[in-house]
């Protein structure tokens, strides 16, 4: 019989991404060690988590992690479901539960989804973008798969701090935006640094035969931003909030198109 965190001795770990501590409780020490390794650099000593999840580990069931995700809310109670996990979360109680097999990918997906839900209400978002800090300013590089997120990350010069090569974390505070490092990796498979900086520019990546920066009209900037925002919830109010957040961001932060050839000189244009 597989034990849930509430049935046996409770082991826990706090994973803090984007300044939001999330405590994960489990009864399985091996799973805890796996999480500790997966989120190294993002493990926090915070005693006041904003959310707490009890993880129940179940036997492997050949569930499909590529299945469509379903994220629904009813009466303040969220349910998150994919082939490889089922999770529930009640924001008012700051508590939730996750049922999954002992792998790091399912809980990674749950964390991404929960962060998108929290950020959407605060004017922030997770973005399909690489990001890095240079000269104490954060630069985002957005694009779909193949647009060059991994390449631009790999070409980052010494002195640039990589926040992520895949999923950028953007939080709003008044009229400014801050980018945080994330453990969410892409092809580079390199966990970002757990640091943050004010967002200076969002670049829309395009591969070309020269290094060039071009202006982007506000409507195009907003459309491109929305195309790259991670959003899973089947919830009209939250979708409208995400839309307004993207419009606000595009209004306040310069959005440019960065055409580049794959060599390090492109970074001479940045920062």
């Amino acid at each position, binding site marked *: 019989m597989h034990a849930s965190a509430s049935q046996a001795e409770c082991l826990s770990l706090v994973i803090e991404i984007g300044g939001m501590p999330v405590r994960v409780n489990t009864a399985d020490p091996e799973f805890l060690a796996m999480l500790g390794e997966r989120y190294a650099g993002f493990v926090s000593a915070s005693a006041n988590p904003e959310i707490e999840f009890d993880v129940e580990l179940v036997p492997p069931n050949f569930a499909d992690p590529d299945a469509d995700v379903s994220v629904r809310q009813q009466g303040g109670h969220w349910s998150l479901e994919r082939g490889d996990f089922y999770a529930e979360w009640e924001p008012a109680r700051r508590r939730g539960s996750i049922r999954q097999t002992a792998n790091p990918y399912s809980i990674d997906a749950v964390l991404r989804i929960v962060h998108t839900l929290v950020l959407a209400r605060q004017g922030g978002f997770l973005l399909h973008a690489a990001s890095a800090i240079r000269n104490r300013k954060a630069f985002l590089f957005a694009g779909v798969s193949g647009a060059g997120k991994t390449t631009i990350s790999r070409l980052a010069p010494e002195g640039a701090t990589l926040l992520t090569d895949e999923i950028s974390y953007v939080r709003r505070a008044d009229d400014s935006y801050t980018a945080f490092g994330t453990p969410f990796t892409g092809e580079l498979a390199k966990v970002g640094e757990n640091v943050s900086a004010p967002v200076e520019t969002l670049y829309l990546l395009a591969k070309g035969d020269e290094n060039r920066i071009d202006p982007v009209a*506000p*409507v195009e900037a*907003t459309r491109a931003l*929305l195309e790259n925002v991670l*959003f899973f919830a089947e919830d009209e109010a939250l*979708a*409208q909030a995400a*839309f*307004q957040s993207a419009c606000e961001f595009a209004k306040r932060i310069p959005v440019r198109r960065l055409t580049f050839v794959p060599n390090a000189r492109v970074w001479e244009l940045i920062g």
Partner: protein
Amino acid sequence: MSMLYVARNPRVAARGLDGEMMIMSGRDSTLFTLNKTATILWQNADGTTPLSEIVERRICSEFEVEPAEALQDAETLARELASHEILQISEHPIPRPASAGESH
């Protein structure tokens, strides 16, 4: 000819950006960008002003077009926007909820 009324669908999110209006469908999150005429129509679609009056006061004065031709074009446009559930159209005034989800 019957009177036509148009109202913004409260289930969409809208935002004016640099003179253009961007709309996101509440049904499936599809994005639409309205041209200048469609933006005027959207902004004045209060559910109580007849479409003919919007055309006469807001569109004809802006674009110097014949009222009959402008009204026909506006009706076509309104029906197209309604097909995407961006606008509601009716032969009677349309009661509206307080919020339309619009921001500038």
